[in-house]
């Protein structure tokens, strides 16, 4: 571009004469530089935490979550902020779907609360005296709670602002449990998505680009992986090993990318035939460069859409396993609270209901956003569907 305009103004100046330092130079762009620095800092911190401290200061899941957030900043937020015009274009298309906009706002709130909330509020604690408190503005027969924390009048126990969403059978505040559950759900959804799209994109693009034996090997492996239902594999693994959030994320992440890889491959096969790939090959670009700079950016829209629609299934899986009591019991999660309220449906309906409402709306919101993203980002879905 720069060379074009210059050649018009000064006929003597040629492509070879362009002073590249003037137009940004051959150095790394700012994003790459910042990315390099922060990945290095991240690595150092992880190494320090793993090898040099007695107990890990930050759990493995939280480290992975931090990595996911970094990836989000550098590969989603930053490019969007740099390409204002494109962002505005996507936004115009996205906001046509009002349900999706509301969903996105809801998800943002859940994300912020879930990420920062657990740092600010204390973990819910056992308090037998405060068991079975109803949510604020609601009341329940005085015989249900052991003692009423709020006002008790006419044989009814009223909820209090101390426990806005009531308490469970062991006196934990449901509002706090919900906030802690937000973190678990966001971690499961986002980290697993990061693992799935990283592996899926690399495998899919490599299979499409190299074709032949590489393609055959990778795709046959995907076939095998896809036949093994992850739900039952995880059942076996939790049975044999100690269940934890980390285990769940790694299993669903490292075994759940088959679908994305197939999708990326079929998309990249079409891109492979485009002339800009041939041009890059003729110009002597390396395989890695072509995959990174030409294939991956051009399949990213498909990947992001598919990944957004995958998140809810991961969240649902986590909630299901927590409900079954097959996750780490010390991590408060929505499924776990729902399960604990199952026995008290006739007296304390709110215990099982409230976390479920949050779970349902989170999953619904991701589905809405994913659907709207497909319409906004995917040029093929224009018009109908």
């Amino acid at each position, binding site marked *: 571009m720069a060379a074009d305009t210059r050649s018009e103004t000064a006929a003597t100046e040629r492509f070879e004469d362009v002073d590249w330092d003037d137009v940004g130079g051959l150095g790394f762009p700012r994003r790459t530089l910042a990315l390099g620095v922060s990945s290095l800092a991240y690595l150092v911190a992880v190494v320090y935490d793993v090898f040099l401290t007695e107990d890990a200061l930050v759990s493995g899941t939280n480290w992975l979550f931090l990595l996911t957030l970094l990836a989000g900043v550098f590969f989603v937020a930053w490019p969007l902020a740099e390409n204002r015009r494109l962002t505005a274009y996507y936004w115009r298309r996205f906001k046509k779907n009002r349900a999706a906009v509301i969903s996105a706002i809801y998800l943002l709130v859940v994300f912020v609360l879930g990420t920062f909330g657990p740092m600010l509020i204390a973990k819910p604690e056992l308090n037998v005296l405060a068991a079975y408190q109803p949510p604020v503005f609601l009341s329940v027969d005085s015989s249900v709670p052991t003692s009423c924390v709020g006002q008790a009048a006419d044989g009814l126990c009223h909820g209090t602002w101390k426990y806005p969403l009531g308490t469970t059978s062991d006196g934990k505040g449901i509002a706090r449990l919900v906030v802690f559950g937000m973190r678990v759900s966001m971690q499961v959804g986002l980290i697993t998505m990061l693992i799935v799209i990283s592996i899926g994109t690399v495998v899919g693009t490599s299979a499409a680009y190299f074709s032949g034996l590489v393609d055959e090997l990778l795709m046959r492996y995907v076939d095998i992986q*896809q036949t*093994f239902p992850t739900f039952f594999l995880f*059942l076996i693994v939790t049975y*044999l090993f100690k269940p934890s959030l980390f285990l769940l994320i790694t299993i669903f992440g490292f075994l759940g990318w088959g679908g994305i890889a197939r999708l990326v491959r079929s998309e990249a096969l079409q891109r492979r035939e485009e002339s800009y790939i041939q041009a890059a090959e003729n110009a002597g670009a390396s395989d890695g460069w072509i995959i990174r700079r030409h294939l991956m950016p051009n399949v990213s829209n498909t990947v992001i859409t598919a990944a957004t629609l995958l998140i809810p299934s991961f969240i649902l899986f986590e909630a*299901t396993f927590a409900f*079954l009591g*097959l996750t780490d019991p010390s991590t408060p999660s929505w499924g776990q609270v729902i399960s604990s309220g199952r026995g008290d449906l006739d007296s304390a309906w709110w215990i099982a209901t409230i976390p479920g409402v949050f*779970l*349902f709306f989170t999953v619904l919101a991701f*589905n809405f956003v994913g659907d709207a993203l497909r319409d906004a980002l995917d040029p093929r879905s224009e018009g109908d569907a």
Partner: protein
Amino acid sequence: MSMHWYVARRVAWAVIATYLILSITFGLLAVAPGDGQTAFAFKAATQGGDVDEAQETFDEITGRDEPLLTRYKNYMVNMATLNWGWSFTRNQPVLDAIAQAYPYSLMYAVPATLISIIAGYAIGLYSATHQYTLTDYFGTFTAFFGISIPNFWFGIMLILVFAVDLGWLPSYYQTGRGVWTVANAKQLILPIIVLSTGAIAGNMRYSRAEALEYVHADFVKTARAKGADDWRVLVRHIFRPALVPLMTILVADILGLLFAGAYITEVVFQIPGLGLLSYKAIIQQDTALVMATTLIPVFIAIIGNLVQDIAYTVLDPRISYGDR
């Protein structure tokens, strides 16, 4: 490549996949720290036995003291000859326990499957032919609801409303009420609703998307121009070509959805089917039973995939065998 060769290759592939999965399971069993050993010893101790002795018995039964290769060989032979072991919590062979449990699973899974296919496809086709109408939006909304609502929570909410508050239906399943009785039907209503909601939504989305490909096709326009009525266009010109992918989706995806969904449904409603059997086995550390009840869905998924691929190639002449 001929079709026979493709089918043969595909079957061979399913066999290899099965073999690999069995090997992986064996590997997991071999490296796992405690596969029911503690539970077994505990059971022996509570029954007045010696813990050390129980340990030895356990090693003998599971063959833990033998070299790895021998164990691997025994394991494979046992799997192939359907000698799937002894469930010590139920004091019966694993396969007997499964044989007793699966009729309960079928009792609600079969109606749920039929309902989800018929209702899902009907709504999907209707939405596709009446695109952008109020009914279409309503259908789309239902689909979102169905795929988003967590099965187990939906079940609990239904119990809360229909069993606890209204008292119309029983809140959990009780055996001994016969099979073809009103009492049994009543206690199966909620599980069927829970299981079919998600599946209806899935079927609806697929069938709508599939049918939309053909709604604006030239041959449909031609049929309309020649005076075919709506029903004929729908059944003969849209439904027939759309049926091919729909049928194949049906086999594998429905199976997977039903199995994972059934697991939860049975735990929520206390139906003594395969899911609850497996869940109890996990809680009680009954390894042989855990393995059998989790491997059966896996095998069914493999067979489902196989049938799906073969059905696809047989039904759709456009598929080239060379591709896969």
